[in-house]
């Protein structure tokens, strides 16, 4: 469950966005898109691990790729790590996107927002392998932070929206879906909570799987930091780290 994985590469792919590839036997345990790893970035500081979602799993090469935004002290420090250095990785953790929700020939709509985009890449890869037709909608704030458009385009029709209109369609992912009346059997999404909420409201009767983000302590379900409410109950809860991060729409209160 824990390994000092070796950094194969670590470089910037968009403004403040980094692509990190790690090598190690832990990859053989990574099967499900949407799962995450808990990474100890520094020796003493920062104290806590950082949850980072898996973007690409390459079992054959025993390599996995993570895309992260260098924003806080931990991820800034991570962005300075060099190939050949090792990284203390715990995982894979959490429950990912269910692939069995779709059979060959059916349509999946993958919707990602900002740094929520990465886990959809492995999902798209595995869905396409299963014969599922994939359409992708990616939303970003601005042109500078757009990444992986071409990579997703190799799996299916890919749309990009930016909030400021500097690239792709101006607006939000929900606007793209509405304008193009994109058809789907199942929608998978990962991104900021307002985006997930909007999708849930836009498609109240459809099958949606939403990946949530929450501040975590332990990442394994012991600290109760990342809980969310369950509809119609004062005391029932789900933990984002161990019950999620992927939930079926309606399963938890957004």
């Amino acid at each position, binding site marked *: 469950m824990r390994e000092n994985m070796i950094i194969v590469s670590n470089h910037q792919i968009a403004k403040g966005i980094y692509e990190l590839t790690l090598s190690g036997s832990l990859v053989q345990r990574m099967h499900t898109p949407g799962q995450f790893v808990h990474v100890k970035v520094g020796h*003493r500081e920062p104290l806590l691990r950082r949850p980072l979602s898996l973007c690409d799993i390459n079992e054959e090469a025993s390599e996995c790729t993570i895309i992260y935004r260098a924003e806080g002290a931990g991820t800034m420090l991570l962005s300075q790590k060099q190939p050949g250095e090792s990284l203390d990785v715990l995982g894979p953790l959490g429950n990912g996107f269910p692939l069995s929700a779709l059979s060959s020939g059916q349509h999946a709509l993958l919707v990602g927002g900002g740094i929520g985009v990465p886990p959809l890449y492995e999902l798209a890869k595995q869905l396409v392998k299963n014969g599922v037709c994939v359409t992708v909608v990616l939303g970003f704030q601005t042109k500078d932070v757009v990444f992986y458009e071409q990579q997703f385009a190799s799996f299916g029709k890919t749309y990009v929206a930016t909030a400021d209109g500097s690239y792709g369609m101006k607006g939000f992912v929900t606007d793209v879906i509405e304008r193009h009346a994109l058809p789907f059997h199942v929608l998978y999404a990962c991104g900021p909570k307002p985006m997930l909420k909007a999708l849930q409201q836009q498609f109240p009767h459809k099958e949606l799987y939403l990946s949530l983000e929450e501040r975590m302590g332990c990442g394994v379900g012991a600290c*109760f930091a990342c809980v969310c409410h369950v509809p119609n109950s004062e005391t029932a809860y789900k933990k984002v780290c161990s019950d999620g991060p992927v939930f079926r729409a309606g399963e938890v209160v957004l």
Partner: protein
Amino acid sequence: MNRLAVELPGLSLKNPIMPASGCFGFGREYAKFYDLSVLGAMMIKATTLEARFGNPTPRVAETPSGMLNAIGLQNPGVDYVLAEELPWLAQYDVPIIANVAGSTVEEYVEVAKRISKAPNVHALELNISCPNVKKGGIAFGTVPEVAAELTRAVKEVSDVPVYVKLSPNVTNIVAMAKAIEQAGADGLTMINTLVGMRIDVKTGKPILANGTGGLSGPAIKPIAIRMIYEVSQAVSLPIIGMGGIQSAEDVIEFFYAGASAVAIGTANFIDPYVCPNIIAELPALLDELGFDHISECTGRSWNNGQTVYCGA
């Protein structure tokens, strides 16, 4: 000879290492990483009479060498713990210290009465120091008379020894410890978290939804050491020490200050294997320091009648 075995009221420990309450759930998560039977004991998550959801998120924030939490005593309630969690834990050869919390004296008493009857509960830890709940919690842990009254009431109904968890958020921790000793407590556990706060520089708002939270981790270790050093020389109760322990060296430091066992909290979040690793490392460290048995370390730094300069 087991060099790590420790005898405390109600507890025959194969080693003095246990996970601290609130940092280990009811053990299910860490049981996926290792066999819980290697632990000296386990302090389970605070249990209240009714189930509690706790505070809104975000509930954690990072600090230099520490973390703030404001979970708010989320737990499934004493009936559920008795029906599901404790029977499940019985498969492991590990004594349980049940952390008891409440909003009123009556609630503490009721939880203590019920949970102390569970066969694998060997001691209670009275949670009078949680800084993250509005009613109960820290209010019980900052006024010596109130803490003493609660200790007495719980002692009366408990089938097992009662340890009281001291709050560091007081002016005079020795006065608190003495009041609790006189009220009949069997031991002390110390320290709980310190009330702290962080503010988001971009928004100007507190990072925690609760506003304030409890600071834990290595940042609070010097405070824990000082308080254990003071209290252990002022009372004759055994102390289970906690507060930022991350290594076997930290454990010895707590023993030197006056602890007879220790609990590991935040470090579990950083390294799920920290407890078994420390247990494995202790014998070699005892060799290096020239001790036959870990108990020889307890109170080694005491002043033995000399002036205590703490807080001067």
